[in-house]
C-alpha cells in the first residue's frame, strides 16, 4: 500500500529529531539508529492508527519512547545494572556521539534517572510542550514538570555549577532560553 506523500514527508521530517532523542535515551548512535528504524517500521505497520491532522512527530516519539522502554526493561533483566549500563556505553565511545565539548554535559545527563532525562530532553530540546511531553510519556503534566525541575537541579549539581559565570558569559542565549520556562 503506497503511503500518502504528505505522510512520507512528515515521517522523514521527524527523523533528525527522533535520532537526537534516541541518542539521548540510549547514549549510543548505532543503537539509536536501530531504535529509529524499528520505530519507523512499527509506525508504518500501524499507520492506520495515526490520526491525520494530529502531530506526526509526537506520534513517532511516543512509539520510539515506548519501544525503548520495553527493550530497556528486557535488557535490565539481562544486564544487572540499569543506568550504569548506559553510563558505561558512553565511556567506551567518547567521541561517537559528538564532540568532546559536550562530553561533560553528556556524562551528567547520563547519570539522570531515565524518566527525568527523557522529560528534560522532550521539553528542553525537542520543543514539545509539557502537555505533549506528558502525552508521549503517558503521565500527568504535573509529573513532567516535576521531572524537568528535578532533572535541571540534578544536572547543575552533577556539573558543579551554581552560577552562570561558571559556564562563561553569554547574555543573549541566556535571555532566549530563560523564556522557555
Amino acid at each position, binding site marked *: *500500500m*503506497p*503511503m500518502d506523500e504528505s505522510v*512520507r514527508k512528515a*515521517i*522523514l521530517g521527524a*527523523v*533528525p*529529531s527522533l*535520532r*537526537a*532523542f534516541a*541518542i*539521548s535515551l540510549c547514549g549510543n548512535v548505532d543503537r539509536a*539508529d536501530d531504535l*529509529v*528504524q*524499528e520505530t*519507523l*517500521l512499527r509506525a*508504518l*505497520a500501524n499507520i492506520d492508527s495515526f490520526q491525520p491532522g494530529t502531530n506526526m512527530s509526537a506520534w513517532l516519539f511516543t512509539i520510539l519512547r515506548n519501544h525503548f522502554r520495553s527493550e530497556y526493561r528486557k535488557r535490565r533483566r539481562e544486564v544487572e545494572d540499569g543506568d550504569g549500563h548506559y553510563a558505561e556505553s558512553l565511556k567506551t565511545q567518547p567521541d561517537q*556521539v*559528538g*564532540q568532546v565539548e*559536550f562530553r561533560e*554535559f*553528556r556524562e551528567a*545527563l547520563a547519570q539522570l534517572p531515565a524518566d527525568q532525562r527523557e522529560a*528534560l*530532553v522532550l521539553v*528542553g*530540546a*525537542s520543543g514539545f510542550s509539557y502537555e505533549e511531553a506528558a502525552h508521549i510519556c503517558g503521565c*500527568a*503534566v*504535573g*509529573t513532567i*514538570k*516535576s521531572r524537568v*525541575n*528535578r532533572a*535541571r*537541579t540534578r544536572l*547543575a*549539581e552533577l556539573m558543579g*555549577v*551554581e*552560577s*552562570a559565570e561558571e*559556564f562563561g558569559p*553569554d547574555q543573549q*542565549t*541566556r*535571555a*532566549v*532560553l*530563560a523564556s*522557555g*520556562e
Partner: protein
Amino acid sequence: MNERKPQGRQTPMETAATNRNRKGTAKPAKLSRDVQARLGQQLRAMYDEVVSQGVPERFTELLNRMNGGASKDKS
C-alpha cells in the same frame, strides 16, 4: 537524596518558582534562571548537532522500500 516530595506539588512552574523564594525549605535547591538557561543551551546544542546531520540514507531507503509495497522487512 533527601528530597522531600510534598503531596500537592503539581502547581504550575511559575507559581512554584515564586513560592520557592518565600519558603525554600521543602523545595529542591533553586536554580537561577541563568544556570537553567545555560544548561538548556548545552542540551540544545548537543541535540541540534544530531538534528543538523539530517536524514541518514538508510531511513530514506527504508521509506522508499516500504512505499514500493514490497515490504520485505519484517520487524
